[in-house]
C-alpha cells in the first residue's frame, strides 16, 4: 500500500507542481488549500483521538488564507506523532526553531528542489513512530560505526575514545539522524534545562566531535551545522 500524504499549500501552482512530483514518486497525495480544509480532511475525531492516523506524513505551509499552519501542528501534536514537514517562505530562524521545538520534523524554506523535499520526507518517514518502536541505536556511515547500546564508536575499525558528554551529544544526534536537532533540544537533553543559554558548550563539544570523527573538520561531512538553528547528523541513506 502506498503512503498517504496530506499537502497543505494555498498557492495553486505550487500545490499542483508538488502534487504531480509526489505522485510520480508513488505517493498517494491529498491536497488542502486552507486550514479549514485541512482540518476537514483530517477529520475532527482524528485530531482529538489517538486512533490510527489518516496520513503517513503532512507537508504544511504556514501562511494560509484562514490562519497559521503552525496552529494545526500544535493541535496535531497534542495527540499524534504523524510526521510534519513545514514548507514555508518565512526564513526567520526564530520561527524555524519555534516550530521544530513544537514538534515539526523538519522545516524547508521555499524555494526548494524536489530532491531536497524527497530526502527530508524519507528521513521523517523513517523516524515515524519512534516513540512506539525502539529508537535508533546503531549508526553506520562510511567507515564510521556508532553503537549506542554498547557505548562504542569506531572509525576505520579503530575504537574512538569519547568523553561522556561527547558521547551523550553524539547519541542525541544519532537518535534523530538526518533530522535537525535545535540548540535548545540538544542543551536540554544533554546538559539539562538550566543550560539553555550555553550555546557555546555546543560549539566546543561539536568542535571536539568533529576533530575526532571528521576527515576535515573545516568541511564536515557528518556533523552538519544548520546556522542559527541547530545540528544535523548526516542521514545514513543519503
Amino acid at each position, binding site marked *: 500500500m502506498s503512503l498517504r500524504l496530506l499537502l497543505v499549500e494555498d498557492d495553486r501552482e505550487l500545490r499542483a507542481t508538488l502534487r504531480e512530483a509526489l505522485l510520480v514518486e508513488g505517493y498517494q497525495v491529498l491536497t488542502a488549500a486552507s486550514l479549514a480544509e485541512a482540518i476537514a480532511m483530517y477529520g475532527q475525531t482524528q485530531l482529538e483521538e489517538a486512533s490510527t492516523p489518516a496520513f503517513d506524513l503532512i507537508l504544511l505551509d504556514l501562511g494560509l488564507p484562514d490562519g497559521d499552519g503552525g496552529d494545526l501542528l500544535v493541535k496535531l501534536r497534542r495527540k499524534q506523532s504523524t510526521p510534519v514537514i513545514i514548507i514555508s517562505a518565512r526564513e526567520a530562524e526564530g520561527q524555524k526553531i519555534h516550530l521544530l521545538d513544537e514538534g515539526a520534523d523538519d522545516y524547508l524554506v521555499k524555494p526548494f528542489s524536489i530532491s531536497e523535499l524527497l530526502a527530508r520526507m524519507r528521513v521523517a518517514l523513517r523516524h515515524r513512530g519512534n516513540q512506539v518502536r525502539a529508537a535508533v541505536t546503531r549508526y553506520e556511515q562510511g567507515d564510521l560505526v556508532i553503537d549506542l547500546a554498547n557505548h562504542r564508536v569506531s572509525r576505520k575499525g579503530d575504537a574512538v575514545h569519547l568523553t561522556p558528554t561527547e558521547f551523550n551529544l553524539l547519541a542525541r544526534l544519532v537518535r534523530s539522524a538526518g533530522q535537525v536537532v535545535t540548540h535548545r533540544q540538544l542543551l536540554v537533553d544533554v546538559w539539562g534545562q538550566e543550560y539553555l543559554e550555553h550555546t557555546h558548550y555546543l560549539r566546543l563539544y561539536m568542535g571536539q566531535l568533529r576533530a575526532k570523527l571528521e576527515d576535515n573538520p573545516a568541511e564536515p561531512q557528518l556533523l552538519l551545522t544548520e*546556522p542559527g538553528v541547530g545540528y544535523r547528523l548526516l542521514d545514513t541513506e543519503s
Partner: protein
Amino acid sequence: MNALTSSQQLLRYSIGLAIWLLGWCLLLFFDAHFDPVNLSLILVLTSALAALWLPLSMTLLASVVGLMAFNWSFVPPRGTFAIDLHQHTVLLIAMMLVNIIIAGLMVFLREQSRRAQAYAHAAEELRIWGDKLRDASEPGSLLDELHLALERLSVGKANNHPVALVALNNQLPPTNQPSALQRIGSVNPEHEEALWHCLRTGQPLGPGTGHYQELDALYLPLRGRSMTSGAALISGITSADEFPALTQAQALCDQMGAALERHHIQQQERQARDQAQAQTVRNTLLAAISHDYRTPLATIMGAASSLDQQSERLSDTQRQQLAHSIVEEADRLRRLTSNVLQLARLDAIGGNIQGDWESAEEIIGSVMRRMRSHDPQQRLSAKLESHLPLLWGDSLLLSQLLENLIDNALKYSPPESPINVSAHIDKHHVVLAVRDQGTDIAAADYEQIFEVFQRGDHRKSGGAGGTGIGLALCRAIARAHGGELEFHATATGASFECHLPLRAQPANPESHL
C-alpha cells in the same frame, strides 16, 4: 552684588570713622596755628572723604555732630554753642550746606558706580554664559550650571530661595507628562502645574513679572525664538523687591532657551538629512535589485517558454539542458532574494545584531557544504587555524557574508583556478578570508562598489554588474559585527578579508561534564 555682607559694611564704617578721627586729630593739631575759618576747611575735607565710605544717613549725622563739636571747640567763645561774630554764623551755615551737598553727591556717585559695576558684572555673566552655551555640543548638559547661576542670583538678604529647573526631553507633549521633563531640584505638585503653564505659555509668572503677581514663587520660561524648552522655579518670593535680579535671571534663562531651541532644530535637520539619504540608498538598492533580477529571470523565461512552445521539436538532451538552466537560474534568484532579505533584516535592526557565540569552523563548514554544489571542478578548499576562539555574532549573516564572497570568487576568477577559504587570528581580530587567483575586477572598482551604496549613486555601479548588492551586504554585515571588510590585491590574485573583533571568551564547561 547690591547686598553687602556685614563684614564689608563694618569695614566701610570703620574707615569712615577712622577718617573722622584723623580729621579731628588734624584740627586739634592745627588749632594753635590757624584761625577757625581755615580749620573749617579741614572739617569739610574730612566730611567729604568720610562720605566716600559712610552711608548717607551716617554722613549727614556725622556732619551735623562734627559741625556742632567744631562750634563748641573752635568757634569763639570756645566751650559753648554760642557764636560771637556774625561772620562765624555764616561760616557755619555755609559749611553745613557744603557738607550736605558733598555728602549727597558722594553717595549719588557711589550709587552710580555701584550700579555701573553691577551692570558690568551682569553683562559679563551673560557673555560668559553665552560663550558656554555656544561651545556646548549638548546645551542640556549645562542645566546644572544654569541652576547654580540662578541660585547665586537668588541669595537674598534674609533667606535663600530654592531653585528648580525643568527642561523638555523632546517635543512638548499634548498633556502634562512628568516623564517628558528633565529636572533639577525638587518641585511640589502646585509648583509643577505652574511650571507646565509657564512652559506652555512661554510667559514668566509671579511677583514682578506682570502675570499672576499673587503667586508665592517666580516662574521663568526658557524661551527661544519660537518655542519654550523649559522653565525655572525660584520659590518663596512674595514681592518683586525680594528678587531684584529678575531681568538678569530671565536673560540667563532665555539664553538657555535659545540654545536648546537651536540644538533641537539642528537635531531635526540632521534627522531629515539622514532620512533623505536613507531614502536615496533605498532607491538605489531597489534599482540595483530589479536590475540584478532581470538576468536570471530572462534565462528562466527563455528556457521555460522554449520548453512550453517548442517542446516537440527539441531533442531529449536539449530539453534536459533547458530544464537544468531553469534550475540553476532559479537558484541564483534564491540567493539574490536571500541577500535582499538579509539587507532588509540588517536595516530593520539598525545594525544591532542578535549575537550568540559562534564557531568559525561551523560557519565555514556549512558554507563550504552549500557552495560545493556550485563548484563541480573542486576549486574550493578551506584551511582553519587550530584552536580558533569563538566569535560573537549572527551565524546566518556571517554565513551569508562568506557565501557571497565565495560566489563572487567563483564567478569572477579564471575557471579552474583554486579558491581558498581560511580563518586565522591577526592580533585582536579573527579574520575570515576568501582568496582567489586573479579576478577581472580592479581594486579601485571594488572600492567604488562599496561606496556606491553609501552615497546612493547607482549610475556608477553599472560596471560591476551583479556584485553590488552582495558586496554592499558583506560590508554592512562586517560593520554590524564591529568589524570591517577589506580588499587586498595579492601577488597572485585578490583577497577579501572580514576582520571581526576578538572578544573575551565565555567560561568553558567544567571538565567532568
